[in-house]
């Protein structure tokens, strides 16, 4: 029973830092049961250790091991990952031990004068326990946040590896402190040793956290670049397909018109007026509709940036499908735009979407979208205009949530502004006129 009360404060400490480090969610009943079990197990461990009095298996080593064991099992119930649970348990123990060791320094410094003074120890305990509690709470919270941040970024295989590395590292931290404690039993200057101990644990702890964070960051970057490469490849393939399809349509168009014209030759001069009229109409229609197709999309061929070309071909096809007339003004080859491709695509996408949205949702008789890339002595202007009835209020259009279209929109131009603010050579201007709204993106050569 005495042992049970003795271990309670340290179990509370361990449990709290475990909670902070692992960030697992427990029910109240679970917590209480786990807590009682841990107290019981460690009390038994400590009592049996004091009976055996073996130098390596001292009471606190056995107590620690039992607690680590309990915490691991406890975490395993939630995470279903042995390595990860053990790693959480060990890490929280190391943090607690660090705060204990740090706080033990003044104790040993002053205890030289009255080493076995019972009252002194009692007073010290009263100060010591809350202090240790606060310190381990702060450290575990901070480190826990850092670890969780890096952990949530990971996926699949890497997550398992991460847990394993974490486990190995935290075992090392723990062993180190224990070896240190073992030595300190043999040496006199306890204050100095505590200090050395504290510094040691701290540095190893931070090295461990730093390694884990760096590792997860590196993995994250690798994933992002892989993803970027993959989507680029997909886009290029898609473009290729579009261009092939486009070529096919063009050759078909040519054949089609020729066929119609040859039919016209048959009908001509003979006395079948209806067929002739019908054919003339068909021919006119074919010429009109097919030439429209050619004019609007043909100028995309001047864009040599696959992402941008893909984006525009999709967006502009969408516009055409919604009965919007598209005017493309790309007079010169565009092969290099000194802006991150992702940002460029996002910005251009927002500009075109904004125009299309307005044209579709507004009630217009004549819907015209003009898009142009204009090279001007090193500067590049990307212009997107749409017909509009009344120009929106300039002060508001870039605000988050402002929209003329109703519903849950209004993020587009706000994002546009944010992206432009984060790129130094990117800026935009709006140019509202009576019946036209233009967004102009200027890209300066750097």
């Amino acid at each position, binding site marked *: 029973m005495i042992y049970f009360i003795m271990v309670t404060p340290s179990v509370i400490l361990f449990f709290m830092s475990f909670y902070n480090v692992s960030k697992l969610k427990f029910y109240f009943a679970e917590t209480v049961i786990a807590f009682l079990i841990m107290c019981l197990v460690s009390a038994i461990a400590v009592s049996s250790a004091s009976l055996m009095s073996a130098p390596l298996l001292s009471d606190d080593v056995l107590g620690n091991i039992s607690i680590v064991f309990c915490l691991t099992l406890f975490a395993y119930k939630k995470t279903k990952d042995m390595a990860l649970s053990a790693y959480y348990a060990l890490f929280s123990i190391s943090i607690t031990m660090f705060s204990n060791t740090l706080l033990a320094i003044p104790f040993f410094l002053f205890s030289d004068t009255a080493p076995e003074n019972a009252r002194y120890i009692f007073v010290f305990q009263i100060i010591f326990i809350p202090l240790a509690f606060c310190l381990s709470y702060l450290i575990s919270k901070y480190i826990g946040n850092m670890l969780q941040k890096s952990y949530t970024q990971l996926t699949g295989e890497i997550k398992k590896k991460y847990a394993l590395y974490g486990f190995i590292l935290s075992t090392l931290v723990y062993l180190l402190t224990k070896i240190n404690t073992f030595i300190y039993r043999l040496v006199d200057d306890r204050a100095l040793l505590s200090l050395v101990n504290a510094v040691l644990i701290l540095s190893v702890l931070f090295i461990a956290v730093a390694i884990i964070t760096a590792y997860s960051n590196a993995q994250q970057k690798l994933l992002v670049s892989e993803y970027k490469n993959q989507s680029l490849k997909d886009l290029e393939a898609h473009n290729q397909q579009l261009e092939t399809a486009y070529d096919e349509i063009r050759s078909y168009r040519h054949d089609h018109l020729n066929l119609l014209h040859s039919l016209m030759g048959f009908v001509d001069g003979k006395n079948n007026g209806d067929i002739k009229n019908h054919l003339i109409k068909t021919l006119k229609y074919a010429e009109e509709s097919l030439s429209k197709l050619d*004019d609007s999309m043909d*100028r995309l061929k001047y864009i040599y940036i696959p992402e941008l070309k893909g984006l525009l071909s999709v967006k502009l096809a969408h516009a055409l499908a919604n009965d919007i007339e598209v*005017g*493309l*003004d790309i*007079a010169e080859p565009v092969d290099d735009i000194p802006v991150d491709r992702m940002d460029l695509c996002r910005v251009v996408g927002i500009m075109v979407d904004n125009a299309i949205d307005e044209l579709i949702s507004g009630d217009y008789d004549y819907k015209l979208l*003009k*898009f*142009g890339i*204009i090279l*001007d*002595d*090193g*500067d590049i*202007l990307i*212009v997107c*205009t749409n017909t509009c009835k009344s120009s929106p209020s*300039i*002060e508001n*259009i*870039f605000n988050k949530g402002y929209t003329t279209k109703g519903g849950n929109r209004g993020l587009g131009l706000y994002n546009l502004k944010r992206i432009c603010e984060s790129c*130094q*050579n990117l*800026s*935009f*201007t*709006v*140019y*509202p006129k009576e019946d036209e709204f233009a967004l*102009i993106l*200027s890209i*300066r*050569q750097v």
Partner: protein
Amino acid sequence: MLSIFVCEDDVTYQKKISEHIHNHLSEMDFDIELVLSTSNPAKILKHIKNSKVKGLYFLDIELEGGYNGIKIAKTIREYDPRAYIAFITSHPGYMSLTFEYKVEALAYIQKESNSSLREKIKTCIDDAYQKHIARPDEGCFIFKTPTGKQISCAFEEIFFFTTGAPGTNQLIMHTKKRQYMFYHSLEKISTELPIGQFYRCHKSYIINVGNIPESGRKALEQGKDRIIMPNGADCLVSFRKRKALVSVLDSL
């Protein structure tokens, strides 16, 4: 006085244009003269190089002999910064944005039937003349871009100047149509700008007081630290300059 220049290599079309211009000018009592009608753009450039003209130019985009109407327009602007330029093209309107934003063309005319050509030329001349008398001798801000090109921009067109990337002496000029970046310093620029129209409202901003919108004045009176200009860009106003800027606004 406004001078008209025509550059078109299709001689019959060129004659048509000149005829329409003459007809319109004789009907109206404008202070305009048709100075030159040619198929060779070099002649026009030579003419405006040596005399300070203010001109209205009708330029064919596709000229013979490797001339490009847009390039010529840019050269013309170097000599005659406020030139009114109208393009003539047989292509459909796909280049409209280039005309508007790269050379700030007054209009572009598609080679079509006779009647619509006459109408369009009339409108061009009327437009240019209205603009010409509305701001008779206003100055221009002239600077060189990093690529060495000279650009001039009417003071009236400018919203504000601000500093670019920190650590460099980049400046960004916000105008009604677009933004320009060039290397200069705000201190030096303020000596080149007309006092009274431009005001240093912040350590990194010079604003064109004439272009502050009504909402900007309200913002100042409400104690806001920035004015949102009609192009959507923020122009910062420092705390100490706020009242002074309002009084400059009043004195306009």
